[in-house]
């Protein structure tokens, strides 16, 4: 959790603080239970390999949640997440760290809301961007 962020303080090109996540097989089981997604490629290694995968892999929706956390941490309690888009381009396996990153692309006031658009992505420990995406948030103003 960070302090409240205001629209006026955000600069285009600004980088969001990196969020490091360390997913484990235990977390995948917890996520399966919490989300109701019991597809075996996320916890049964033999099943995953029989389906052409290198190992059990992270749920796409869990990676989506990591990028959601990147944004909700950044916008603070008075910010609002409006849009969150992610593409699962590469697979991620548990047991290695994964980093959520972002950069501010654009800010504008629209229909009375102070909007900020960010490019966001997950990067594996080899520096490969496995999960690119975008987010649009509304931030409070210091003056309004």
């Amino acid at each position, binding site marked *: 959790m960070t302090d409240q962020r205001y629209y006026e303080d955000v600069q285009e090109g600004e980088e969001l603080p990196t969020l490091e*996540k360390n997913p484990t097989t235990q977390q995948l089981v917890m996520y399966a239970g919490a989300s109701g997604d019991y597809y075996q490629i996320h916890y049964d290694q033999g099943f995953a390999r029989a389906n052409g995968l290198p190992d059990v892999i992270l749920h796409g*929706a869990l990676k989506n*949640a990591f990028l959601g956390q990147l944004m909700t941490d950044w916008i603070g309690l008075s910010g609002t*997440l409006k849009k969150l*888009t992610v593409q699962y381009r590469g697979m991620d396996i548990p047991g290695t760290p994964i980093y959520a990153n972002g950069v501010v692309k654009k800010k504008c006031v629209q229909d009375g809301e102070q909007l900020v658009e960010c490019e966001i992505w997950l990067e594996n420990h080899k520096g490969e961007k496995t999960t690119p995406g975008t987010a649009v948030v509304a931030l409070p103003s210091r003056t309004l």
Partner: protein
Amino acid sequence: MSNDSVITQQMLDAVGVESDPVTHQVEKGAIIKFAQAIGDPNPVFNNERAARKTRHGGIVAPPTFLRSMISGPDKAKVENPYSAGLDGGSEWEYSEPVHPGDRITVTTKIANIYERQGRLGNMLFIIRETKYVNQFGAVVALERTTSIGYQPPE
């Protein structure tokens, strides 16, 4: 590698057919369990006492919590020729926060079906649109997902 399309008339007929609505009760414990599962310690998702001091007035659901509000089966059956599947991505548009005690009604429909050659051979892309509506009739979120079907090796 065959270039034969696996897209059938049955699949095309299923595009746009909405599922029967399913209504889920949002439980506070389920929100906390979800926040723990994704490893997000934000007090507004985990701690009622701390969350009450915020503008939300209590715990709210993390953005992707709605994934646990599973939709009903498709009315127009699609016989997917591929037994293996991967999640291709997700686009969320959020309009309202989700609170404990909300009743969320979920409907889903296939918006598009197409195929492409990829590293797993012929891959079948199914684009699905899911709508989440609360007990006041307000759309809380729209989600557009891509699922990818493929033939497992051997």
